[in-house]
């Protein structure tokens, strides 16, 4: 491996770590700073996803000079994060709506039926 390539990889890894750390920090700061519960939900779903994603990308590329290959397992962690973040956010949002802690001015669905969380409970099939 040429020294120039080595330096380039180190630069990418450093950028990933610093950038990822920055976004994770911003996400946590948003949790403290935003006043309403629904607003606070936005910070962890987005900012931390790219924060962790960038750190994992750095880790994946960082193994290139050591082992000679890019490590794939970090991509899996990123994929699972992308799959699970919307689901946990949806659960939290539904909980807030059901407990009446979300912003009260819910719009009308426009379909003649109520929002699922506030509708009649259906028995499990």
């Amino acid at each position: 491996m040429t020294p120039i390539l080595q330096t380039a990889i180190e630069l990418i890894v450093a950028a990933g770590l610093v950038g990822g750390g920055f976004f994770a920090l911003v996400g946590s700061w948003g949790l403290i700073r935003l006043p309403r519960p629904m607003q606070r939900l936005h910070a962890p779903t987005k900012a931390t996803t790219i924060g962790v994603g960038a750190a994992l990308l750095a880790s994946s590329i960082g193994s290139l000079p050591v082992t000679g290959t890019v490590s794939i397992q970090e991509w899996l962690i990123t994929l699972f994060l992308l799959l699970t973040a919307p689901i946990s956010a949806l659960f939290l949002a539904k909980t807030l709506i059901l407990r009446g802690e979300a912003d009260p001015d819910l719009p009308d669905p426009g379909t003649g039926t109520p929002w699922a969380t506030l509708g009649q409970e259906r028995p499990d099939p």
Partner: protein
Amino acid sequence: MLKRLFPHPYLSLTLIVLWFMLVNQWKLGSLVMAVILATILPLVTSAWWPDRARVRHPLRLLGYTALVFWDIIVANFQVAYVILFIPRDKVQSRWLTVPLDLKSPEAVSLLAGTITMTPGTLSSDMSACGRALLVHALHAPDPDAVRDQIKSRYEARLKRIFE
């Protein structure tokens, strides 16, 4: 028979690929384990996913994924800007109703996931009949523009892929 054994072929294929990514090596033993998992997991979970997913253009999903990845990066800069620089009482959070044209449950869940991951929006609930999504926007001075963007940028593409 084959349909009974593999109720969701796409899920089985995905599981095989994921298992190989997880073990990070090419061995026959890994393939055996991958096939076992790809058979058992869809069978066990098929009670919660009764209908087979129909994907009309699987290749176009790749283009859609690339678009969403790009938007996630942009979204993070926008949300970071809102968190860091807009005064707390000036952040205009709004609820939006997004009426759905999509019917396939897989497409709707993909759309809801996309909305959550992209610029300042969070899918929060669905109408009881499944024809509208409740979306929370972190900072939307113009809610109609956000709704139109969701419909034209994501829903139209998903409709072309799935229906």
